[in-house]
Protein backbone atom coordinates (compact mmCIF):
# COMPACT_ATOMS: atom_id res chain seq x y z
CA UNK A 1 0.00 0.00 0.00
CA UNK A 2 1.20 3.45 -0.81
CA UNK A 3 -0.08 5.39 2.20
CA UNK A 4 2.86 4.65 4.42
CA UNK A 5 5.45 5.83 1.96
CA UNK A 6 3.43 8.93 1.08
CA UNK A 7 3.02 9.60 4.74
CA UNK A 8 6.79 9.60 5.18
CA UNK A 9 6.98 12.34 2.58
CA UNK A 10 4.58 14.56 4.51
CA UNK A 11 6.68 17.56 5.50
CA UNK A 12 6.93 18.04 9.22
CA UNK A 13 5.86 21.47 10.32
CA UNK A 14 6.13 23.28 13.56
CA UNK A 15 3.35 25.35 14.94
CA UNK A 16 3.16 28.83 13.42
CA UNK A 17 2.88 31.89 15.65
CA UNK A 18 -0.27 31.82 17.78
CA UNK A 19 -3.08 33.54 15.90
CA UNK A 20 -5.12 36.24 17.61
CA UNK A 21 -8.62 35.70 18.98
CA UNK A 22 -9.94 37.91 16.19
CA UNK A 23 -8.18 35.82 13.56
CA UNK A 24 -9.74 32.66 15.08
CA UNK A 25 -13.17 34.27 15.00
CA UNK A 26 -12.76 35.35 11.38
CA UNK A 27 -11.86 31.80 10.35
CA UNK A 28 -15.14 30.62 11.82
CA UNK A 29 -16.89 33.45 10.02
CA UNK A 30 -15.36 32.15 6.79
CA UNK A 31 -16.81 28.75 7.63
CA UNK A 32 -20.27 30.32 7.90
CA UNK A 33 -19.81 31.88 4.45
CA UNK A 34 -18.74 28.53 2.99
CA UNK A 35 -21.94 27.04 4.40
CA UNK A 36 -23.96 29.47 2.31
CA UNK A 37 -22.02 28.36 -0.74
CA UNK A 38 -22.44 24.62 -0.11
CA UNK A 39 -25.93 24.56 1.37
CA UNK A 40 -27.85 27.10 -0.71
CA UNK A 41 -31.08 25.36 0.34
CA UNK A 42 -30.91 27.18 3.65
CA UNK A 43 -31.35 30.44 1.75
CA UNK A 44 -34.74 29.28 0.50
CA UNK A 45 -36.25 29.21 4.00
CA UNK A 46 -34.53 32.42 4.80
CA UNK A 47 -35.92 34.22 1.75
CA UNK A 48 -39.34 32.67 1.22
CA UNK A 49 -40.74 32.93 4.74
CA UNK A 50 -40.42 36.73 5.04
CA UNK A 51 -41.67 37.25 1.47
CA UNK A 52 -44.74 35.15 2.23
CA UNK A 53 -45.41 36.93 5.50
CA UNK A 54 -45.05 40.35 3.93
CA UNK A 55 -47.40 39.56 1.05
CA UNK A 56 -49.90 37.68 3.23
CA UNK A 57 -50.27 40.35 5.86
CA UNK A 58 -50.21 43.27 3.47
CA UNK A 59 -52.78 42.02 1.00
CA UNK A 60 -54.94 39.61 3.03
CA UNK A 61 -55.13 41.38 6.40
CA UNK A 62 -53.84 44.84 5.53
CA UNK A 63 -57.11 46.31 4.29
CA UNK A 64 -59.05 45.08 7.32
CA UNK A 65 -56.40 46.12 9.82
CA UNK A 66 -55.45 49.57 8.53
CA UNK A 67 -58.02 50.56 5.94
CA UNK A 68 -55.81 49.81 2.94
CA UNK A 69 -52.90 47.50 2.09
CA UNK A 70 -50.56 50.41 1.46
CA UNK A 71 -51.32 52.05 4.81
CA UNK A 72 -50.79 48.71 6.53
CA UNK A 73 -47.49 48.11 4.75
CA UNK A 74 -46.20 51.42 6.09
CA UNK A 75 -46.98 50.17 9.62
CA UNK A 76 -46.07 46.51 9.17
CA UNK A 77 -42.77 46.54 7.26
CA UNK A 78 -40.48 47.56 10.14
CA UNK A 79 -42.25 44.94 12.26
CA UNK A 80 -41.70 42.09 9.81
CA UNK A 81 -38.01 42.98 9.82
CA UNK A 82 -37.91 42.46 13.60
CA UNK A 83 -39.93 39.25 13.33
CA UNK A 84 -37.60 37.85 10.68
CA UNK A 85 -34.46 38.62 12.64
CA UNK A 86 -35.91 37.09 15.81
CA UNK A 87 -37.00 33.91 14.02
CA UNK A 88 -33.74 33.64 12.07
CA UNK A 89 -31.77 33.50 15.29
CA UNK A 90 -32.88 29.87 15.55
CA UNK A 91 -30.51 28.78 12.75
CA UNK A 92 -27.34 29.17 14.81
CA UNK A 93 -28.74 27.02 17.57
CA UNK A 94 -29.72 24.32 15.12
CA UNK A 95 -26.34 24.42 13.42
CA UNK A 96 -24.59 24.24 16.77
CA UNK A 97 -26.70 21.28 17.88
CA UNK A 98 -25.83 19.50 14.61
CA UNK A 99 -22.11 20.19 15.04
CA UNK A 100 -22.12 18.97 18.62
CA UNK A 101 -23.94 15.78 17.65
CA UNK A 102 -21.24 15.02 15.09
CA UNK A 103 -18.24 15.55 17.30
CA UNK A 104 -16.99 18.52 15.29
CA UNK A 105 -16.87 20.71 18.38
CA UNK A 106 -14.69 18.12 20.11
CA UNK A 107 -12.12 18.87 17.47
CA UNK A 108 -12.48 22.62 18.02
CA UNK A 109 -12.28 22.21 21.78
CA UNK A 110 -9.07 20.20 21.54
CA UNK A 111 -7.41 23.00 19.54
CA UNK A 112 -5.39 25.77 21.20
CA UNK A 113 -7.76 28.55 20.08
CA UNK A 114 -9.85 31.28 21.67
CA UNK A 115 -12.71 29.26 23.24
CA UNK A 116 -15.45 31.64 22.10
CA UNK A 117 -14.24 31.73 18.48
CA UNK A 118 -16.62 29.03 17.19
CA UNK A 119 -19.55 31.02 18.57
CA UNK A 120 -18.29 34.23 17.05
CA UNK A 121 -18.38 32.35 13.74
CA UNK A 122 -21.99 31.39 14.28
CA UNK A 123 -22.74 35.04 14.93
CA UNK A 124 -21.09 36.05 11.65
CA UNK A 125 -23.37 33.58 9.87
CA UNK A 126 -26.35 35.02 11.71
CA UNK A 127 -25.48 38.58 10.77
CA UNK A 128 -25.16 37.60 7.12
CA UNK A 129 -28.55 35.92 7.28
CA UNK A 130 -30.12 38.98 8.87
CA UNK A 131 -28.63 41.25 6.22
CA UNK A 132 -29.77 39.03 3.35
CA UNK A 133 -33.31 38.58 4.69
CA UNK A 134 -33.60 42.24 5.69
CA UNK A 135 -32.50 43.45 2.27
CA UNK A 136 -34.99 41.20 0.50
CA UNK A 137 -37.89 42.32 2.68
CA UNK A 138 -36.99 45.97 2.31
CA UNK A 139 -36.74 45.57 -1.48
CA UNK A 140 -40.15 43.90 -1.68
CA UNK A 141 -41.54 46.60 0.57
CA UNK A 142 -40.15 49.38 -1.61
CA UNK A 143 -41.60 47.70 -4.69
CA UNK A 144 -45.01 47.45 -3.00
CA UNK A 145 -44.94 51.10 -2.03
CA UNK A 146 -43.28 51.32 1.41
CA UNK A 147 -41.63 54.71 1.94
CA UNK A 148 -38.94 54.97 4.62
CA UNK A 149 -39.40 58.59 5.62
CA UNK A 150 -36.11 58.81 7.49
CA UNK A 151 -34.25 57.99 4.26
CA UNK A 152 -31.04 56.07 3.75
CA UNK A 153 -29.57 57.03 7.10
CA UNK A 154 -32.69 55.74 8.84
CA UNK A 155 -32.42 52.43 7.01
CA UNK A 156 -28.75 52.02 7.91
CA UNK A 157 -29.49 52.82 11.57
CA UNK A 158 -32.43 50.39 11.55
CA UNK A 159 -30.28 47.59 10.09
CA UNK A 160 -27.59 48.22 12.69
CA UNK A 161 -30.27 47.93 15.36
CA UNK A 162 -31.57 44.70 13.73
CA UNK A 163 -28.10 43.19 13.88
CA UNK A 164 -27.84 44.09 17.56
CA UNK A 165 -31.23 42.47 18.16
CA UNK A 166 -30.23 39.34 16.23
CA UNK A 167 -26.94 39.18 18.13
CA UNK A 168 -28.74 39.29 21.48
CA UNK A 169 -31.44 36.79 20.51
CA UNK A 170 -28.82 34.47 18.99
CA UNK A 171 -27.41 33.66 22.44
CA UNK A 172 -30.75 32.12 23.47
CA UNK A 173 -30.47 29.56 20.71
CA UNK A 174 -26.78 28.99 21.18
CA UNK A 175 -27.49 28.04 24.80
CA UNK A 176 -30.37 25.80 23.66
CA UNK A 177 -28.08 24.31 21.02
CA UNK A 178 -25.50 23.49 23.69
CA UNK A 179 -28.10 21.88 25.93
CA UNK A 180 -30.17 19.97 23.37
CA UNK A 181 -28.71 17.33 21.10
CA UNK A 182 -31.45 17.17 18.48
CA UNK A 183 -31.55 20.15 16.10
CA UNK A 184 -35.30 19.84 15.47
CA UNK A 185 -35.99 20.02 19.21
CA UNK A 186 -33.97 23.23 19.36
CA UNK A 187 -36.20 24.64 16.61
CA UNK A 188 -39.48 23.45 18.15
CA UNK A 189 -38.58 24.68 21.61
CA UNK A 190 -37.32 27.96 20.21
CA UNK A 191 -40.47 28.65 18.25
CA UNK A 192 -42.69 27.66 21.18
CA UNK A 193 -40.97 30.38 23.15
CA UNK A 194 -40.81 32.93 20.32
CA UNK A 195 -44.34 32.70 18.93
CA UNK A 196 -46.07 34.34 21.90
CA UNK A 197 -43.35 37.00 22.05
CA UNK A 198 -43.72 37.82 18.36
CA UNK A 199 -47.50 37.65 18.07
CA UNK A 200 -48.31 39.27 21.41
CA UNK A 201 -46.46 42.38 20.31
CA UNK A 202 -47.09 45.49 18.26
CA UNK A 203 -45.59 43.95 15.10
CA UNK A 204 -48.86 43.13 13.36
CA UNK A 205 -51.44 45.35 15.01
CA UNK A 206 -51.70 48.44 17.16
CA UNK A 207 -52.22 47.10 20.71
CA UNK A 208 -54.95 49.75 21.36
CA UNK A 209 -57.65 47.18 20.49
CA UNK A 210 -56.29 44.48 22.82
CA UNK A 211 -57.74 43.69 26.26
CA UNK A 212 -55.98 45.49 29.10
CA UNK A 213 -54.22 42.45 30.55
CA UNK A 214 -52.73 41.58 27.18
CA UNK A 215 -51.84 45.18 26.48
CA UNK A 216 -49.97 45.32 29.76
CA UNK A 217 -47.78 42.50 28.47
CA UNK A 218 -47.48 43.81 24.91
CA UNK A 219 -46.31 47.19 26.13
CA UNK A 220 -43.33 45.73 27.98
CA UNK A 221 -42.65 42.88 25.55
CA UNK A 222 -39.06 43.41 24.38
CA UNK A 223 -40.17 42.59 20.83
CA UNK A 224 -42.62 45.53 20.97
CA UNK A 225 -39.88 47.82 22.22
CA UNK A 226 -37.59 46.69 19.40
CA UNK A 227 -40.36 47.20 16.84
CA UNK A 228 -41.17 50.70 18.08
CA UNK A 229 -37.52 51.68 17.78
CA UNK A 230 -37.18 50.26 14.26
CA UNK A 231 -40.41 52.05 13.22
CA UNK A 232 -39.03 55.26 14.62
CA UNK A 233 -35.64 54.80 12.97
CA UNK A 234 -37.11 54.09 9.53
CA UNK A 235 -40.13 56.36 9.66
CA UNK A 236 -38.46 59.26 11.45
CA UNK A 237 -39.30 60.69 14.83
CA UNK A 238 -37.30 58.21 16.93
CA UNK A 239 -36.11 59.31 20.34
CA UNK A 240 -33.14 58.15 22.34
CA UNK A 241 -35.35 56.58 24.99
CA UNK A 242 -36.90 54.21 22.45
CA UNK A 243 -33.51 53.12 21.20
CA UNK A 244 -32.25 52.48 24.73
CA UNK A 245 -35.37 50.47 25.65
CA UNK A 246 -35.02 48.39 22.51
CA UNK A 247 -31.40 47.59 23.32
CA UNK A 248 -32.05 46.47 26.90
CA UNK A 249 -33.00 42.91 25.94
CA UNK A 250 -30.06 42.30 23.56
CA UNK A 251 -27.57 43.75 26.05
CA UNK A 252 -28.94 41.77 28.99
CA UNK A 253 -29.12 38.57 26.94
CA UNK A 254 -25.51 38.98 25.83
CA UNK A 255 -24.28 39.86 29.31
CA UNK A 256 -25.96 36.81 30.86
CA UNK A 257 -25.83 34.22 28.10
CA UNK A 258 -22.34 34.77 26.65
CA UNK A 259 -20.67 33.71 29.94
CA UNK A 260 -23.26 30.91 30.29
CA UNK A 261 -22.32 29.73 26.81
CA UNK A 262 -18.64 29.65 27.68
CA UNK A 263 -19.35 27.80 30.91
CA UNK A 264 -21.58 25.20 29.23
CA UNK A 265 -19.06 24.75 26.45
CA UNK A 266 -16.03 24.28 28.66
CA UNK A 267 -17.62 22.35 31.52
CA UNK A 268 -17.90 18.89 29.92
Amino acid at each position, binding site marked *: MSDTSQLQ*KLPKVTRPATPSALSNALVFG*WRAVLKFKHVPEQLFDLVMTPIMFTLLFTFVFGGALAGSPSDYLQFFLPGILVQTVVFNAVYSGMGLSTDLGKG*LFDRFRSLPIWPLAPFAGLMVGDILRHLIAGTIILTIGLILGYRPEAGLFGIIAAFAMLIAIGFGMGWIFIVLGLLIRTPTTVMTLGFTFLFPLVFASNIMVDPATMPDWLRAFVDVNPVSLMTSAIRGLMGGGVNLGEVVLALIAPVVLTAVLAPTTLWLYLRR
Partner: protein
Amino acid sequence: MNDTSPPVKLNAPLDASPNAISARGLVKSFGDVRAVDGIDLDVPRGIIFAVLGPNGAGKTTLMRMLATLTRPDAGSASVMGHDLMTAPHAVRTAIAMTGQFASLDEDLTGRENLVLLARLWGFRGRAAKARADDLLTAFDLSHAATKQVKDYSGGMRRRLDIAASLIVTPGVLFLDEPTTGLDPKARKDVWAMIRGLADSGVTILLTTQYLEEADQLAARIAVIDHGKKIAEGTSRELKAATGSGFLHVATADPARLDEAAGILEQRLGHRASRSTEGAELSILAGTAKDANEALAALVGQGIELSDFSMGQPSLDEVFFALTGQPGADAGRKEATL
Protein backbone atom coordinates in the same frame (compact mmCIF):
# COMPACT_ATOMS: atom_id res chain seq x y z
CA MET B 1 5.58 -3.53 5.03
CA ASN B 2 5.29 -5.40 8.22
CA ASP B 3 1.81 -6.77 8.74
CA THR B 4 2.00 -9.28 11.52
CA SER B 5 4.65 -8.58 14.10
CA PRO B 6 4.56 -5.52 16.34
CA PRO B 7 7.04 -2.70 15.75
CA VAL B 8 10.62 -3.37 16.77
CA LYS B 9 10.53 -0.53 19.29
CA LEU B 10 8.49 -2.93 21.42
CA ASN B 11 11.35 -3.98 23.59
CA ALA B 12 13.01 -0.62 24.02
CA PRO B 13 13.61 0.13 27.69
CA LEU B 14 10.64 2.11 28.95
CA ASP B 15 12.49 4.18 31.53
CA ALA B 16 14.99 5.53 29.01
CA SER B 17 12.73 8.44 27.96
CA PRO B 18 10.30 10.61 29.85
CA ASN B 19 6.68 9.66 29.35
CA ALA B 20 4.44 11.32 26.80
CA ILE B 21 1.51 10.74 29.12
CA SER B 22 1.61 10.17 32.82
CA ALA B 23 -1.66 9.88 34.74
CA ARG B 24 -2.39 9.07 38.37
CA GLY B 25 -5.73 8.11 39.88
CA LEU B 26 -7.96 9.58 37.19
CA VAL B 27 -11.65 9.47 38.14
CA LYS B 28 -14.71 10.62 36.25
CA SER B 29 -18.30 9.94 37.27
CA PHE B 30 -21.49 10.56 35.34
CA GLY B 31 -24.28 10.53 37.89
CA ASP B 32 -23.90 7.31 39.83
CA VAL B 33 -21.70 5.66 37.26
CA ARG B 34 -17.97 5.83 37.78
CA ALA B 35 -16.99 5.75 34.12
CA VAL B 36 -13.31 5.94 35.00
CA ASP B 37 -12.52 4.70 38.48
CA GLY B 38 -8.96 5.49 39.41
CA ILE B 39 -6.74 4.78 36.44
CA ASP B 40 -2.94 5.19 36.37
CA LEU B 41 -1.32 5.32 32.98
CA ASP B 42 2.25 5.80 31.75
CA VAL B 43 2.73 6.06 28.03
CA PRO B 44 6.36 6.26 26.90
CA ARG B 45 7.18 8.63 24.05
CA GLY B 46 7.11 7.37 20.50
CA ILE B 47 5.09 4.20 20.90
CA ILE B 48 1.62 3.05 19.98
CA PHE B 49 -0.28 2.43 23.18
CA ALA B 50 -3.67 0.70 23.06
CA VAL B 51 -6.45 1.01 25.59
CA LEU B 52 -8.47 -2.12 25.13
CA GLY B 53 -11.87 -2.84 26.56
CA PRO B 54 -15.49 -3.63 25.79
CA ASN B 55 -18.15 -1.00 25.10
CA GLY B 56 -18.79 1.17 28.13
CA ALA B 57 -15.52 0.23 29.84
CA GLY B 58 -14.50 3.89 30.15
CA LYS B 59 -11.99 4.03 27.30
CA THR B 60 -13.48 7.08 25.59
CA THR B 61 -13.92 8.96 28.87
CA LEU B 62 -10.30 8.28 29.76
CA MET B 63 -9.14 9.57 26.40
CA ARG B 64 -11.38 12.63 26.53
CA MET B 65 -9.91 13.56 29.90
CA LEU B 66 -6.37 13.29 28.57
CA ALA B 67 -7.34 15.38 25.53
CA THR B 68 -8.74 18.17 27.80
CA LEU B 69 -12.31 17.57 26.61
CA THR B 70 -13.61 16.27 29.93
CA ARG B 71 -12.47 17.49 33.31
CA PRO B 72 -11.46 14.71 35.72
CA ASP B 73 -13.26 14.60 39.09
CA ALA B 74 -10.04 13.49 40.75
CA GLY B 75 -6.50 12.53 39.91
CA SER B 76 -3.76 14.24 37.97
CA ALA B 77 -2.04 13.85 34.64
CA SER B 78 0.58 15.42 32.47
CA VAL B 79 0.68 15.24 28.70
CA MET B 80 3.96 16.04 26.93
CA GLY B 81 5.12 17.62 30.16
CA HIS B 82 2.11 19.94 30.53
CA ASP B 83 -0.21 19.59 33.49
CA LEU B 84 -3.70 18.66 32.43
CA MET B 85 -5.48 20.60 35.15
CA THR B 86 -3.42 23.77 35.35
CA ALA B 87 -2.26 24.14 31.74
CA PRO B 88 -4.95 22.69 29.46
CA HIS B 89 -4.17 25.22 26.73
CA ALA B 90 -0.53 24.11 26.65
CA VAL B 91 -1.69 20.49 26.46
CA ARG B 92 -3.83 21.42 23.44
CA THR B 93 -0.79 22.79 21.62
CA ALA B 94 0.90 19.39 21.94
CA ILE B 95 -1.93 17.01 21.07
CA ALA B 96 -4.46 16.18 18.41
CA MET B 97 -7.53 14.03 18.76
CA THR B 98 -9.57 12.09 16.26
CA GLY B 99 -12.81 11.18 17.95
CA GLN B 100 -15.05 8.21 17.46
CA PHE B 101 -17.44 10.19 15.30
CA ALA B 102 -15.98 12.02 12.36
CA SER B 103 -15.04 15.47 13.61
CA LEU B 104 -15.39 17.09 10.22
CA ASP B 105 -17.77 19.58 8.66
CA GLU B 106 -19.81 17.42 6.29
CA ASP B 107 -21.00 20.37 4.24
CA LEU B 108 -17.50 21.57 3.38
CA THR B 109 -15.08 19.91 0.99
CA GLY B 110 -12.16 17.87 2.25
CA ARG B 111 -9.76 20.64 1.35
CA GLU B 112 -11.84 23.35 3.01
CA ASN B 113 -11.96 21.31 6.22
CA LEU B 114 -8.17 21.13 6.30
CA VAL B 115 -7.68 24.78 5.34
CA LEU B 116 -10.10 25.79 8.09
CA LEU B 117 -8.10 23.90 10.70
CA ALA B 118 -4.77 25.07 9.30
CA ARG B 119 -5.94 28.68 9.66
CA LEU B 120 -7.06 28.02 13.22
CA TRP B 121 -3.55 26.75 13.96
CA GLY B 122 -2.18 30.01 12.62
CA PHE B 123 -1.16 29.23 9.04
CA ARG B 124 -1.99 32.16 6.82
CA GLY B 125 -3.46 32.24 3.32
CA ARG B 126 -1.15 30.35 1.01
CA ALA B 127 0.62 28.41 3.77
CA ALA B 128 -2.72 27.04 4.99
CA LYS B 129 -3.64 25.89 1.49
CA ALA B 130 -0.20 24.34 0.95
CA ARG B 131 -0.45 22.40 4.21
CA ALA B 132 -3.95 21.18 3.29
CA ASP B 133 -2.69 19.98 -0.09
CA ASP B 134 0.32 18.22 1.47
CA LEU B 135 -2.00 16.36 3.80
CA LEU B 136 -4.45 15.45 1.03
CA THR B 137 -1.57 13.98 -0.98
CA ALA B 138 -0.10 12.10 1.96
CA PHE B 139 -3.47 10.56 2.76
CA ASP B 140 -4.30 9.74 -0.84
CA LEU B 141 -7.28 12.08 -0.94
CA SER B 142 -6.18 14.55 -3.63
CA HIS B 143 -8.77 13.16 -6.03
CA ALA B 144 -11.56 14.00 -3.57
CA ALA B 145 -10.19 17.37 -2.43
CA THR B 146 -13.11 19.38 -3.83
CA LYS B 147 -15.84 16.91 -2.90
CA GLN B 148 -18.08 17.61 0.08
CA VAL B 149 -17.23 15.35 2.99
CA LYS B 150 -20.80 14.02 3.12
CA ASP B 151 -20.03 12.24 -0.16
CA TYR B 152 -16.91 10.51 1.24
CA SER B 153 -16.81 6.79 1.98
CA GLY B 154 -16.23 5.63 5.55
CA GLY B 155 -12.57 4.94 4.87
CA MET B 156 -11.96 8.30 3.18
CA ARG B 157 -13.68 10.08 6.04
CA ARG B 158 -11.43 8.34 8.57
CA ARG B 159 -8.33 9.24 6.57
CA LEU B 160 -9.38 12.88 6.33
CA ASP B 161 -10.20 12.88 10.03
CA ILE B 162 -6.72 11.61 10.87
CA ALA B 163 -5.17 14.05 8.39
CA ALA B 164 -7.03 16.82 10.23
CA SER B 165 -5.15 15.81 13.37
CA LEU B 166 -1.79 16.31 11.67
CA ILE B 167 -2.03 19.95 10.60
CA VAL B 168 0.75 20.54 13.08
CA THR B 169 2.61 17.32 13.87
CA PRO B 170 1.35 16.54 17.38
CA GLY B 171 3.38 15.16 20.25
CA VAL B 172 0.54 12.82 21.13
CA LEU B 173 -2.18 11.70 18.77
CA PHE B 174 -5.36 10.36 20.37
CA LEU B 175 -7.38 7.99 18.21
CA ASP B 176 -10.72 6.88 19.60
CA GLU B 177 -11.68 3.58 18.00
CA PRO B 178 -9.99 4.46 14.72
CA THR B 179 -11.33 1.52 12.74
CA THR B 180 -14.81 1.00 14.17
CA GLY B 181 -17.28 0.65 11.33
CA LEU B 182 -14.69 0.28 8.59
CA ASP B 183 -14.57 -2.59 6.11
CA PRO B 184 -11.52 -4.91 6.31
CA LYS B 185 -9.67 -3.16 3.48
CA ALA B 186 -10.16 0.32 4.91
CA ARG B 187 -9.21 -1.05 8.30
CA LYS B 188 -5.88 -2.37 6.99
CA ASP B 189 -5.23 1.00 5.34
CA VAL B 190 -5.81 2.85 8.61
CA TRP B 191 -3.54 0.41 10.42
CA ALA B 192 -0.77 1.04 7.92
CA MET B 193 -1.27 4.77 8.36
CA ILE B 194 -1.07 4.51 12.15
CA ARG B 195 2.17 2.50 11.91
CA GLY B 196 3.56 5.08 9.51
CA LEU B 197 2.80 7.87 11.96
CA ALA B 198 4.39 6.01 14.84
CA ASP B 199 7.49 5.42 12.72
CA SER B 200 7.74 9.18 12.23
CA GLY B 201 7.93 9.64 16.00
CA VAL B 202 4.37 10.53 17.00
CA THR B 203 3.19 8.97 20.25
CA ILE B 204 -0.18 7.37 19.62
CA LEU B 205 -2.79 6.48 22.22
CA LEU B 206 -5.65 4.55 20.66
CA THR B 207 -8.72 2.92 22.10
CA THR B 208 -10.14 -0.19 20.61
CA GLN B 209 -12.53 -2.96 21.36
CA TYR B 210 -10.85 -5.15 18.77
CA LEU B 211 -8.35 -7.41 20.42
CA GLU B 212 -6.77 -8.08 17.07
CA GLU B 213 -6.18 -4.37 16.53
CA ALA B 214 -4.36 -3.94 19.83
CA ASP B 215 -2.29 -7.04 19.15
CA GLN B 216 -1.37 -5.91 15.63
CA LEU B 217 -0.51 -2.29 16.37
CA ALA B 218 0.37 -1.61 19.94
CA ALA B 219 3.70 -1.90 21.72
CA ARG B 220 1.83 -1.77 25.01
CA ILE B 221 -1.75 -2.53 25.89
CA ALA B 222 -3.82 -1.51 28.90
CA VAL B 223 -6.95 -3.59 29.42
CA ILE B 224 -9.81 -1.55 30.89
CA ASP B 225 -13.08 -2.86 32.25
CA HIS B 226 -15.74 -1.10 34.34
CA GLY B 227 -13.56 2.00 34.63
CA LYS B 228 -10.57 0.16 36.06
CA LYS B 229 -7.32 -0.97 34.53
CA ILE B 230 -7.25 -4.73 34.95
CA ALA B 231 -3.99 -5.50 33.16
CA GLU B 232 -1.18 -3.82 31.29
CA GLY B 233 1.80 -4.97 29.32
CA THR B 234 3.01 -5.97 25.89
CA SER B 235 0.70 -8.30 24.08
CA ARG B 236 3.23 -11.08 24.76
CA GLU B 237 3.26 -10.30 28.47
CA LEU B 238 -0.51 -10.29 28.66
CA LYS B 239 -0.66 -13.63 26.96
CA ALA B 240 2.05 -15.04 29.20
CA ALA B 241 0.27 -13.79 32.31
CA THR B 242 -2.71 -15.86 31.35
CA GLY B 243 -0.72 -19.07 31.38
CA SER B 244 1.49 -20.86 28.94
CA GLY B 245 -1.40 -21.29 26.61
CA PHE B 246 -4.42 -23.20 25.53
CA LEU B 247 -4.69 -26.90 24.97
CA HIS B 248 -6.84 -27.88 22.00
CA VAL B 249 -8.08 -31.46 21.85
CA ALA B 250 -10.22 -33.43 19.40
CA THR B 251 -11.46 -36.96 20.23
CA ALA B 252 -11.65 -39.70 17.63
CA ASP B 253 -15.11 -40.61 18.90
CA PRO B 254 -17.20 -37.42 19.12
CA ALA B 255 -19.54 -39.13 21.56
CA ARG B 256 -16.80 -39.14 24.20
CA LEU B 257 -16.13 -35.39 23.96
CA ASP B 258 -18.14 -34.61 27.10
CA GLU B 259 -16.32 -37.25 29.05
CA ALA B 260 -13.00 -35.82 27.86
CA ALA B 261 -14.10 -32.32 28.85
CA GLY B 262 -14.89 -33.56 32.36
CA ILE B 263 -11.46 -35.11 32.76
CA LEU B 264 -9.63 -32.05 31.43
CA GLU B 265 -11.59 -29.66 33.66
CA GLN B 266 -10.87 -31.78 36.69
CA ARG B 267 -7.16 -31.97 35.86
CA LEU B 268 -6.55 -28.37 34.84
CA GLY B 269 -9.06 -26.55 37.02
CA HIS B 270 -10.48 -24.40 34.21
CA ARG B 271 -13.61 -24.53 32.12
CA ALA B 272 -13.30 -26.24 28.77
CA SER B 273 -15.03 -24.65 25.80
CA ARG B 274 -16.17 -26.40 22.66
CA SER B 275 -15.33 -25.07 19.24
CA THR B 276 -18.31 -23.78 17.30
CA GLU B 277 -18.31 -26.93 15.18
CA GLY B 278 -18.46 -28.90 18.42
CA ALA B 279 -15.70 -31.34 17.57
CA GLU B 280 -12.84 -29.75 19.51
CA LEU B 281 -12.23 -28.70 23.11
CA SER B 282 -10.13 -25.74 24.20
CA ILE B 283 -8.98 -25.31 27.74
CA LEU B 284 -6.55 -23.06 29.56
CA ALA B 285 -3.50 -25.04 30.58
CA GLY B 286 -1.26 -23.72 33.34
CA THR B 287 2.02 -25.09 32.06
CA ALA B 288 3.11 -27.49 29.35
CA LYS B 289 3.65 -30.09 32.05
CA ASP B 290 0.05 -29.75 33.26
CA ALA B 291 -1.14 -30.11 29.69
CA ASN B 292 0.93 -33.27 29.21
CA GLU B 293 -0.46 -34.84 32.35
CA ALA B 294 -4.01 -33.98 31.32
CA LEU B 295 -3.46 -35.64 27.96
CA ALA B 296 -2.00 -38.69 29.67
CA ALA B 297 -5.12 -38.88 31.83
CA LEU B 298 -7.31 -38.90 28.74
CA VAL B 299 -5.33 -41.68 27.16
CA GLY B 300 -5.39 -43.51 30.50
CA GLN B 301 -9.20 -43.50 30.33
CA GLY B 302 -9.03 -45.05 26.87
CA ILE B 303 -10.15 -41.92 25.06
CA GLU B 304 -8.53 -41.88 21.66
CA LEU B 305 -7.43 -38.48 20.42
CA SER B 306 -7.61 -37.61 16.75
CA ASP B 307 -5.73 -34.34 17.23
CA PHE B 308 -4.26 -32.14 19.92
CA SER B 309 -2.21 -28.97 19.99
CA MET B 310 -0.93 -26.36 22.35
CA GLY B 311 -1.11 -22.71 21.41
CA GLN B 312 -0.30 -19.28 22.81
CA PRO B 313 -3.56 -17.80 23.99
CA SER B 314 -5.11 -15.25 21.66
CA LEU B 315 -5.97 -11.86 23.15
CA ASP B 316 -9.58 -13.05 22.98
CA GLU B 317 -8.70 -15.75 25.42
CA VAL B 318 -6.66 -13.35 27.49
CA PHE B 319 -9.58 -11.00 27.71
CA PHE B 320 -11.86 -13.87 28.65
CA ALA B 321 -9.47 -14.96 31.37
CA LEU B 322 -9.17 -11.39 32.73
CA THR B 323 -12.78 -10.28 32.65
CA GLY B 324 -14.80 -13.46 32.49
CA GLN B 325 -16.51 -12.27 29.34
CA PRO B 326 -15.64 -12.84 25.73
CA GLY B 327 -13.98 -10.00 23.85
CA ALA B 328 -15.66 -8.14 21.04
CA ASP B 329 -13.95 -10.34 18.49
CA ALA B 330 -15.13 -13.57 20.03
CA GLY B 331 -17.76 -14.35 17.44
CA ARG B 332 -15.70 -13.44 14.40
CA LYS B 333 -13.94 -15.97 12.25
CA GLU B 334 -11.18 -13.56 11.27
CA ALA B 335 -10.24 -13.04 14.89
CA THR B 336 -7.58 -15.73 15.05
CA LEU B 337 -4.34 -13.99 15.80
